[in-house]
């Protein structure tokens, strides 16, 4: 097996991975950086983010406001020291992107323009029309081409982390085009491999978001944190799950039910605001969890519109006019017109909530470090606890940058702390074992389970039992089912026997990652007997700060369900309070 020696290996080349790679290259041009991704960097799912990135830049805004919006939005499950660090770094990172050429939308005087976003008290979302994530990703990718020390391994699928002497010291990855396993020896590893929402059938996430990075760390002994918190985005296209950005509402789009009523006022987000004049943190600019929950209630009441794609509410943007829609929301218009056949300039768009983002992920501290020495994580795959129980829109793109960079700086500090070289024999043995495991999987014959079949059962289980509102019985059933699917996963067979670009094998490995992550979600959700942010229990409807002002930590077990533990939330200055989205009129 070929051994590739490097200083820092980064798994994932989306926003966080690229930002980390650039930070490493800038800090020390002599560092050897291996940027490993199962896709070419510009295919990473950062490209699908639309709305924008939050950072305090305007004189009427303040760090305190961004802090309190974020912590309240997260229903006080955020670590406040980390949020503090995050909001202070945010504007610097967004400016850095500007200096790298990101085509941010502008005010007439040439300064950065900001738009309103859900749950934010002040307009603070930097945007590049409605392709903010796309432009961030491409700016980072193109900038990364400046640095010869960033050695890319495009289309390499990481299979295992190598841990010796209690430290993460590298990984094994399949070169997809040849099917060959490679052993990367690294002094530190950064995981930036994105979320896991593909465990749900109806999601805004691309096919690649299968929780591989989370599963890598989890299996290597690092716990997953707060996995039960899954964000539903309130405005997805009903047939495909394609996202229509929160910017639609930020620019003034309204949500109405089948009676034409702006129903959000009936769920504590009123009073009704004038059409086309959005008021921050009110009505349509409430947070995503509240909006998605309101949809659920409307559906129960029979107030939703029945379409051929299921029950929907309507997102009406007609009053914005063609010019503004073309200027600010061109992609939204294109997506709704092409995929649903509804032009937002002319008709209200049927939408419904769709799984969008995992608040949970690999447990990291303020330094983006996991509890496993030598292993760092950033982006959606990590849970650094700025998002708490519900992420505010436009905080995640900024998070990629702030903690991508932080992971890089922490990795450098870790390397410089004077490590003894690991036992290369022990690592080689592990790498060999990893290779054998994959070979055995490929060569196995007589499987009884189909990959697509297990995947469908997993998705159905998650959709039926782990949705916007949850019940103990249903969650217990989901735990049992996912646990069963994990067992049955041993019975799969890879029918594709070619070594070259074997996507049958990749899908099998991705399914394994998703099942591990799904189990952490269900186990965490069953044990959290309270309602907080995106985790709403019909049998425990209140927030329980006595019992659950805590992060859940799930520890992997190869055969059994995970072990569950809890960790106190870090509170510095904001005590848990009431989340108020009523425009100040309680």
């Amino acid at each position: 097996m070929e051994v590739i020696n490097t200083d820092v290996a980064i798994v994932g080349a989306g926003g966080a991975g690229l930002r980390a790679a650039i930070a490493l290259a800038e800090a020390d041009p002599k560092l050897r950086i291996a940027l490993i991704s199962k896709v070419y960097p510009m295919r990473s799912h950062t490209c699908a983010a639309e709305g924008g990135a939050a950072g305090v830049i305007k004189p009427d805004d303040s760090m305190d406001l961004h802090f309190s919006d974020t912590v309240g939005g997260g229903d006080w499950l955020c670590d406040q020291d980390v949020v503090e660090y995050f909001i202070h770094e945010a504007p610097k990172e967004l400016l850095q992107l500007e200096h790298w050429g990101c085509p941010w939308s502008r005010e007439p005087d040439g300064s950065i323009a900001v738009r309103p976003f859900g749950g934010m008290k002040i307009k603070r979302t930097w945007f590049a029309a409605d392709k903010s994530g796309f432009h961030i990703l491409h700016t980072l990718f193109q900038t990364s081409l400046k640095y010869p020390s960033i050695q890319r391994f495009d289309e390499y699928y990481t299979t295992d982390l190598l841990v010796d002497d209690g430290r993460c010291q590298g990984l094994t990855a399949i070169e997809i085009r040849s099917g060959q396993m490679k052993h990367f020896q690294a002094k530190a590893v950064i995981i930036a491999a994105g979320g896991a929402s593909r465990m749900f059938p109806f999601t805004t996430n691309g096919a690649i978001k299968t929780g591989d990075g989370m599963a890598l760390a989890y299996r290597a002994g690092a716990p997953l944190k707060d996995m039960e918190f899954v964000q539903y985005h309130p405005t997805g296209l009903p047939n495909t799950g394609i996202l229509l950005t929160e910017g639609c509402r930020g620019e003034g789009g309204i949500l109405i039910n089948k009676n034409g009523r702006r129903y959000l006022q009936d769920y504590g987000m009123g009073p009704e605001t004038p059409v086309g004049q959005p008021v921050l943190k009110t009505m349509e600019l409430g947070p995503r969890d509240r909006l998605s929950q309101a949809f659920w209630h409307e559906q129960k009441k029979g107030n939703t519109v029945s379409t051929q794609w299921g029950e929907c509410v309507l997102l009406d943007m007609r009053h914005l006019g063609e010019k503004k829609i073309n200027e600010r929301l061109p992609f939204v218009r294109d997506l709704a017109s092409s995929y649903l056949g509804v032009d937002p300039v002319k008709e209200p768009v049927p939408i419904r909530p769709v799984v969008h983002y995992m608040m949970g992920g690999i447990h990291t501290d303020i330094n983006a470090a996991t509890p496993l020495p030598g292993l760092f994580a950033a982006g959606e795959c990590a849970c650094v606890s700025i998002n708490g129980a519900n992420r505010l829109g436009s905080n995640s793109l900024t998070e990629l940058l702030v903690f991508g960079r932080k992971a890089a700086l922490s990795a450098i500090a870790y390397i410089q702390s004077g490590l003894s070289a690991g036992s290369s024999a022990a690592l080689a043995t592990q790498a060999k074992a990893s290779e054998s495991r994959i070979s055995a999987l490929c060569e196995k014959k007589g499987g009884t389970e189909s990959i697509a079949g297990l995947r469908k059962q997993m998705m159905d289980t998650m959709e039926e039992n782990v949705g916007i509102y949850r019940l103990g019985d249903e969650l217990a059933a989901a735990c049992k089912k996912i646990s069963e699917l994990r067992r049955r996963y041993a019975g799969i067979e890879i029918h594709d026997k070619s070594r070259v670009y074997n996507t049958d094998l990749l899908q099998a490995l991705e399914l394994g990652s998703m099942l591990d992550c799904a189990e952490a979600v269900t186990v965490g959700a069953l044990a959290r007997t309270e309602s907080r942010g995106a985790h709403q229990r019909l049998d425990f409807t209140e927030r329980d700060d006595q019992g659950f002002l805590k992060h859940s930590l799930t520890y992997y077990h190869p055969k059994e369900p995970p072990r569950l533990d809890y960790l106190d939330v870090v509170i510095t200055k904001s005590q848990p309070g009431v989340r108020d989205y009523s425009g100040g009129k309680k």
Partner: protein
Amino acid sequence: MSNKPYVREVSKTTWFLNPQQPRYKRYMAREVTCIFIGAYTFLLIVALKRLAEGPDAFQGFLNALHSPLGVLFNLAALVAAVYHSTSWFNVTPQAMPIQRGEEFVPGNIIVGAHYAVWAVVSLIILILGI
């Protein structure tokens, strides 16, 4: 590296005949019609030469132009020249975009301006000719 990627050969001589890409034939038509423009230029040079050789030579040249073959050639050259010129006019907005403030001047205005100039120049020549 990969085992043995398969390279699909493209014919160096008949690539534009690809039935699934009619645009290639349109492109070739645009390029080939320039031959007529070249030929017409050549014809003008011949006319000058004949003129220099005296009235008889020039009359012979004019007679040749009035022959069926000459008329046919002129017609063909006219069609080809018009096709060639308009196909280029139509792509000028791509090559020479004009920005006014935040907006770009619509392409049909740029194309239209070309046609207008063409019409004016033709008109002037016509008047001078009469």
